[in-house]
């Protein structure tokens, strides 16, 4: 029988403290951690051997136990409007998606933080997969690093599969790598983390990160939001907003609210009035999102004309409101659809 070969650990996705620990364990000079970070996050190397300011002996030593650890996507779909949806395999049997959305003046990448999701929102396709696991820091960042458009991405949104605040530690590590001087050195203004509002994790995020925060609101009424989003039972949106109002936000930090428009469910004048009350006194933006019906869903999307009326009514109440452009409809760019199909394919084969 062959001896068990221990899998090599990945260097990519490690923070500077974690890299310092690696070089300490390997008996390498402490400054090597910063050098490795440079190669990983500024020079985009794909092998340890390319880290040429490390001695050959150090590189060989690292290669015995470590690898860079990047992995390619296994599938890509491209929309007529240029939107691309990348599918990544995680482990043996999990799949996550990242959506690349180019525009004239920017290019946004939407990344996933979990395989599946535990939150069980009524309108969400990802939730139908159940929960399969948290993504590690490397698995989150790999969705950015491993796509061909990596260096053209101007904005990153954590709005793909999963609930970022249910995987806070790895999300915060990925943000640290993206925004630190020793990492990618991105401005936090280029990154938005979207959550349904898990209050303790949200407060930790606001304390530790200057990245933008987006909250999935979708209904201002307690009893109605409960029907769509079970999290309302534990962390009601009213308390989420009260905590945000109390929080000491950075000067550049922006809070926005995502609001998927469901026909005659959350788009009435009553909802406009309640939104006005709920967001009163909070500097924020509301982002209205068209709902594209999925098979079996009891929900229908609000007609465009009503979405515009809703936007105008909120704007008249002093709430900065925008309507998100629908992108990648021909490839069903909404998160969860491609990976669900891949999971179904896999289970039908097994």
């Amino acid at each position, binding site marked *: 029988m062959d001896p068990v070969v221990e899998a090599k650990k990945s260097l990519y996705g490690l923070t500077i403290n974690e890299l310092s620990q690696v070089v300490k364990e390997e008996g390498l000079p402490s400054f090597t951690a910063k050098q490795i970070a440079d190669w990983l996050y500024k020079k985009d190397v794909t092998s340890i051997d390319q880290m040429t300011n490390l001695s050959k002996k150090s590189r060989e030593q690292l290669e015995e136990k470590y690898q860079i650890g990047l992995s390619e996507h296994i599938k890509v779909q491209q929309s007529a409007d240029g939107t691309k949806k990348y599918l990544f395999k995680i482990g043996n049997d999990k799949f996550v998606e990242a959506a690349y959305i180019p525009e004239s003046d920017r290019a946004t990448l939407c990344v996933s933080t979990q395989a*599946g*999701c*535990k*939150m*069980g929102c*009524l309108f969400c396709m990802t*939730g*139908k*997969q*159940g*929960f399969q696991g948290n993504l590690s820091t490397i698995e989150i960042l790999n969705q950015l690093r491993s796509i061909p458009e990596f260096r053209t991405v101007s904005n990153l949104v954590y709005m793909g599969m999963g*609930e970022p605040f*249910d995987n806070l530690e790895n999300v915060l590590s990925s943000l640290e790598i993206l925004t630190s001087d020793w990492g990618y050195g991105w401005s936090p203004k280029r990154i938005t983390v979207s959550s349904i509002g*898990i*209050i*303790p994790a949200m*407060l*930790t995020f606001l304390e530790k990160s200057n990245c933008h925060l987006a909250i999935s609101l979708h209904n201002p009424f*307690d009893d*109605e939001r*409960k*029907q*769509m989003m*079970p*999290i*309302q*039972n*534990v962390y*009601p949106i009213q308390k989420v907003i009260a905590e945000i109002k109390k929080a000491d936000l950075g000067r550049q930090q922006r809070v926005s609210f995502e609001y998927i428009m469901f026909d005659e469910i959350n788009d009435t004048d009553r909802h406009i009035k309640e939104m006005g009350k709920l967001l009163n006194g909070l500097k924020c933006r509301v982002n209205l999102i068209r709902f594209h019906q999925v098979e*079996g869903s*009891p*929900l229908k999307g609000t007609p465009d004309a009503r979405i515009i009326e809703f936007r105008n009514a909120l704007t008249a109440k002093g709430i900065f409101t925008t309507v998100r452009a629908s992108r990648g409809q021909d490839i069903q760019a909404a998160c969860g659809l491609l990976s669900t199909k891949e999971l179904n394919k896999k289970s039908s084969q097994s």
Partner: protein
Amino acid sequence: MTKQRLIKNVFLVLYINLNCKMISWNQQKYTTEVVLENKMIAPSAYILKFRRKFNFSAGQVVGLGVNVAIEPRLYSIASGEDEEFIEILYTEKSDGQLTPMLSLLKNGDRVLVTQPYGTFTNYSDSPVFIATGTGIAPFISAIKSKRVSNVTLIHGVRACDYFYFSDMLKKQLGENYIQCCTGFASSEYFDGRVTKYLREFPVNPNKKYYLCGVAEMVVDARDILISKGVPFSSIISEIYF
């Protein structure tokens, strides 16, 4: 400041914190409670018991922890509103951070408990409760608290050992207590998951349905109920996360 005075101040702060009933634990209020019982009721399944010092509504959760270094995890209260003790039903997850430590707690040990919160609490008349595993806890609390009448309870487990509180439920609910078991075929139980049961048997679209358990069950059961004519507004869910 002298070293001696510094040490004294540190002890003073510790003393104040340990004796203060409500202190901050990662933005949460909590108390330290004495474990009165931590009993294994099925393989890897436990009921943790401590004295009730707060009022709560059936269906609410508390955060539990063994020290402040580990984030509290949320558990539904499984005891009745008027009972002298709080009971928490939990299963030990071998890969979990907290439950292997919780399972080691002995009588007299300390456990950190947040204030109760959550609003999975208002149940209609003649509700249908659907739960898997320890997701039965809020419904047990509601039944013990006599907050509901004419209850139907559908409980799904992987082995018959995990039909928690089944004696009480059989006695109180009779035929309205439906046990679904995936790991053991018996004429006593429905052979299969709760979702299989919902698919195979008629559902009353005029009732209110309350679901509690892992997201996969909640999402699947909700889809089945909707496909059988239950309005989504009649389905309220609590999820584990």
